[in-house]
């Protein structure tokens, strides 16, 4: 973990600060101030991304720092999109995701253009990571709606169940695309479209939980909203294991271990 006193670093920290203040305002129910700060954070993120683009002179989606910078910018449009088109509104949670997503960009991934090992120099790398992360944002929102559902009753419970379902519907195709792009890349780089390594298997397991959810929901509809929510929450739990445990713990030695 490191603090970067560069223009780029400071722009990231400014965005995080805006999102954090927006989040606090949202918690305190200062709606208007929260929304304004959220938008200010978004504009800072856009500026930060544009600055990066100008600095490196290519689409800044080549390494993990740039992908997370991009996602930190994308969270606001995702938020607006979910609110307007999908009728799922939870600004405070989105602001929180914005902070979580920008944290690694600000403190963990080096903004230095890294010398990628040969296997990572593939055009599939950035889209593979980007669609996965975007899908994870939707899945996190789905799990959040699912958790809210667990504490609601009556009409509101069904409303939350359906909001959670819409979020999974938004995220699942992206998750599938991430899985398939990764597999395609694996075939080009490591000669196997499926290598059975731990990260692949965790990501398959999380994908399958949503597959199970869809089949369960196709069977019972909304008769058991709580069980529906539990599927979605366990999906997120497996996603978190896929993301962190495998990378950080180094319990398993797999192909994906150097991705951090």
């Amino acid at each position: 973990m490191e603090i970067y006193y560069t223009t780029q670093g400071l722009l990231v920290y400014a965005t995080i600060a805006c999102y954090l203040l927006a989040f606090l305002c949202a918690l305190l129910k200062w709606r208007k101030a929260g929304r304004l700060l959220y938008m200010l954070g978004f504009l800072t993120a856009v500026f930060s991304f544009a600055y990066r683009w100008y600095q490196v002179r290519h689409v800044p989606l080549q390494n993990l720092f740039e992908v997370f910078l991009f996602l930190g910018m994308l969270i606001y449009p995702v938020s607006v999109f979910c609110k307007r088109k999908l009728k799922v509104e939870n600004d405070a949670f989105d602001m929180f995701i914005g902070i979580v997503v920008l944290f690694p960009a600000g403190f963990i991934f080096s903004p230095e253009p890294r010398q990628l090992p040969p296997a990572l120099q593939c055009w599939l790398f950035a889209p593979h990571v980007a669609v996965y992360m975007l899908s994870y944002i939707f899945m996190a929102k789905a799990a959040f709606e699912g958790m809210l559902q667990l504490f609601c009753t009556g009409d509101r419970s069904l409303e939350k169940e359906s909001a959670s379902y819409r979020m999974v519907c938004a995220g699942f195709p992206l998750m599938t695309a991430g899985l398939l792009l990764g597999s395609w890349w694996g075939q080009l780089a490591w000669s196997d479209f499926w290598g059975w390594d731990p990260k692949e298997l965790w990501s398959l397991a999380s994908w399958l939980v949503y597959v199970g959810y869809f089949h369960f929901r196709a069977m019972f509809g909304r008769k058991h909203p709580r069980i529906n929510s539990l599927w979605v929450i366990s999906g997120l739990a497996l996603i978190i294991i896929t993301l962190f445990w495998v990378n950080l713990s180094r319990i398993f030695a797999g192909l994906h271990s150097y991705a951090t």
Partner: protein
Amino acid sequence: MEKFHRLVMWIVLLLIILLVGFSIYGAFIGAEKAKEFFNSLPLISYWLILIFMLIVGFLNFPRLARTPSLLLIHFGCILIIAAGMYGSEAGHKARKNIFGVDKIYRGQMIIPQNHEIDIVKLENTDQIKLLPFLIKLKDFRIEYYGQGQTGTGAIRDFISSLAVIKDGKTIAQKDVEVNHPLHFGGYYFYQHSYDPKAARYTVLKVVSDSGLGAVYIGYLCLAAGVFWHFWLGQLFRKTENN
């Protein structure tokens, strides 16, 4: 009939949950053992049952066959699993025993500079096999980050300039590098290793392409199907009813 539908759905759900369990177990034992596990006899029967249930699904639930997006998704899954099994090590063994098709599953070639070689050393054995064509290494080079070829920067790429030769004639050429294999005659040739002392030879990994085309068609079906079904069908359809 209603009871039968329910039973089929429960079996499907059970199969999905089982696969979640298998995957988590596989993640704990590491890639090599996981590969063995997923290719073992009990798991082969699992895969066959899964394909069977996907087909039963089509027969049992007319909606699956009538809704194009669901058809694509499930057809894609059948194709991926079936083609994956066909192209697996066990699939290659089965084809050798039943049909006498003796295709190399995985192997390695060592090619010195300016030599033409057709010998493949099979993976995990001492056996060798010959390709029906020769591969010539015209040039091998390592590229580094930063200026020059001094080797001070990190390695950026390994590149083998290859030519495929049959009956004395060059029939294909390619610079094989990491992420850019050569595809020829039913095999993929990957840049695998090299002569660490003088860069006078290259090591290629030879991989059978059996079933791969079908797997990719399956991927396309699955990807098109999920976007169609969930984005166009569920999120943005005109009539809201969920």
